[in-house]
């Protein structure tokens, strides 16, 4: 039963292993080893026995093979209506097959299944809305990813991503020291323009604890500064934790359920320690999914609810605008036609569409909906980890055409995208297809149009 040095059934738990896996550029050796990796049939059987219960069994069994899910799937539509992209076919030929064969599958099958699970489904859950039986293939694909991860058949980048969370407690190698320093650095940098601005670390009993995406401190710390400015302007009594600040979960994309639990428990531990009244997360869809929607279950909370209320950033902004904590200068609203990307993770899967519409009504004069929109919107094309997997870059680029065409149909040149994955996908589609659009998170837009209260203006501004 050979297992590779890089490709094996063990998750990455040490910095040393993580670094050596990172050293295998593009996963060249990793995928070679995968072709030799044997399936541990006994373990797979045992997992099925334990975790495959009536909901999923029934879904697989009663699927009427009616094909109504076909058109609901953007990957089917964008791949010339290839029947192999019909959601029911994709799940029946992978998970369905594993179940019918009671786990007796081989390496080649598992490698094909990996490809389907990560390059032909983004777990956007749209097909479940279009199935008469209510069969949610996105949920099943997520379950399938868990089976694949446990057997070592996971794309290289996601094995690394899971390892990052396990080693650093974040999706990137940002240590506690790095993070706290970034907070100090960003606060100092902003203090001249925004006197009194702070990024309070580990303040106890604050009203609001802010959690975010490790990419922000690592690659564009100005996003953290912008969050701080907006909290400052809104007069928010807020803090960030020194540990448990990372809200994202590549472990979720990877199907590393034990890693998911570790990740979300870090955030909940920060809540326990600092006792904020509530938590606000950054403009990220999957982070919200992992921490707020799925997180309570991974952490074993029978209520299915987070320990204190957790808001997505769009909920906080919509509240700040409607209560007047943030006021928009009518002169500075967006004048040009602008459209909005609905993130599957917090719109279809958490009902927050109304909040982004409230925000648009405050900040935009000429807002155009995409079609379809809200719960029925299509995935950006890069969700569920698709953006980050080199092996499936070509498929991902094809997938982007859906969003490209949706944006083009609105006639807008500006897209508001309050989600990291969506933001990336839209950036990449512009790079790939050059349709002449711009895209933005909410924070920089808000800062450019918010009215600064007199007492918060820098002294030397009078000129």
């Amino acid at each position, binding site marked *: 039963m050979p297992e590779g040095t890089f490709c094996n059934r063990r998750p990455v738990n040490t910095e040393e292993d993580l670094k050596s896996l990172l050293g295998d550029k593009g996963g060249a050796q990793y995928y070679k080893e995968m072709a030799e990796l044997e399936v541990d049939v006994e373990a797979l059987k045992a997992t099925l026995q334990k975790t495959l219960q*009536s909901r999923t069994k029934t879904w697989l069994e009663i699927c009427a093979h009616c094909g109504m899910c076909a058109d609901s799937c953007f990957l089917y539509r964008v791949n010339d209506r290839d029947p192999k992209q019909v959601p029911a076919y994709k799940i029946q030929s992978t998970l369905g097959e594993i179940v019918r064969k009671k786990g007796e599958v081989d390496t080649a099958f598992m490698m094909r299944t990996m490809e389907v699970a990560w390059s032909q489904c983004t777990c956007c859950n749209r097909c479940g809305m279009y199935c008469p039986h209510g069969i949610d293939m996105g949920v099943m694909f997520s379950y399938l990813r868990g089976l694949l991860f446990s057997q070592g058949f996971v794309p290289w980048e996601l094995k690394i991503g899971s390892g990052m969370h396990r080693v650093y407690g974040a999706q990137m190698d940002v240590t506690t020291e790095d993070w706290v320093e970034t907070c100090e650095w960003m606060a100092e940098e902003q203090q001249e323009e925004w006197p009194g601005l702070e990024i309070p670390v580990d303040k106890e009993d604050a009203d609001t604890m802010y959690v975010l995406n490790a990419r922000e401190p690592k690659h564009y710390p100005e996003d953290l500064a912008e969050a701080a400015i907006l909290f400052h302007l809104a007069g928010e009594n807020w803090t960030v934790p020194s540990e448990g600040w990372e809200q994202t979960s590549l472990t979720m994309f990877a199907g590393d359920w034990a890693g998911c639990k570790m990740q979300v428990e870090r955030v909940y531990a920060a809540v326990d320690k600092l006792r904020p009244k509530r938590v606000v997360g950054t403009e990220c869809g999957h982070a919200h999914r992992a921490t707020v929607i799925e997180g309570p279950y991974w952490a074993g909370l029978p209520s299915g609810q987070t320990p204190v209320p957790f808001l997505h950033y769009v909920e906080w902004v919509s509240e700040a605008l409607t209560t007047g904590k943030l006021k928009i200068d009518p002169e500075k609203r967006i004048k040009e036609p602008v459209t909005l990307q609905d993130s599957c993770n917090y719109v279809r899967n958490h009902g927050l569409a109304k909040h982004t519409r409230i925000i648009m009504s405050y900040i935009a004069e000429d807002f155009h909906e995409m079609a379809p929109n809200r719960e029925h919107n299509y995935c950006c094309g890069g969700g569920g980890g698709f953006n980050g997997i080199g092996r499936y870059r070509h498929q991902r680029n094809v997938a982007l055409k859906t969003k490209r065409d949706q944006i083009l149909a609105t006639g807008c040149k500006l897209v508001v995208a309050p989600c990291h994955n969506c933001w990336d996908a839209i950036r990449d589609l512009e790079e790939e297809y050059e349709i002449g659009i711009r895209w933005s998170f909410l924070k920089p837009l808000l800062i450019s149009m918010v009215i600064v209260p007199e007492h918060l203006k820098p002294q030397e501004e009078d000129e």
Partner: protein
Amino acid sequence: MYAFLTGPMLWVALLVFFGGLAARVVWYVRGLSWQLDRVAYGPHLAHGLKGGIHSALKWMLPFGTQSWREQPYFAVAFFLFHIGAVLVPLFLAGHNIILAERFGFSLPVLPMGIADALTVAAIIGLVMIALRRIALTEVRILTTAYDWFILAVSAAPFVTGFVARLHVGNYDAWLLAHIITGELLLIVAPFTKLSHIVLFFMSRGQLGMDYAIKRGGYSRGAAFPW
């Protein structure tokens, strides 16, 4: 033969049908797990059920969901068949005569003309469903012999019953064929995809609860915009 088929055999068929389907429901509900499904059914039961019932009702309404509206051909085929499939067996005058004779009670009865129309509609619906299965590549790739078997088992009682009703050919033979295929349907239902007679409500209800309890039901309300 007739006496046996509408006597002891009818008992057996009905027992298997109702007993089997009831067992499927019990097995389904007992197999739900708040941890594995990641849906906190218990603490949010009332709110969840609202979403579950809404989810089933919306889909039972012709053109009630976005999916039905986007696929009018299949929606028409589906409802033509299913309306007849539910109403005719339950409320046909002939069936209720047997019910009264054997079990001492009967249900309200459909006027003959309406029963005929519903039967013809159901057969047309089935033909439309079969044609779609052959014509569309996205349905063809999913289709197996099992799907044709289910379609045949569902069609047989309607076709045989209607031929008997028209008194074409040998009435007694068609009537026997009708009773046998009808009882076959009752007997295989709990063990095949026909179990969706009850599992439709379970599965639809579950997803409705999932959305109501966990996936935004407390923000958008229990009713998901299907």
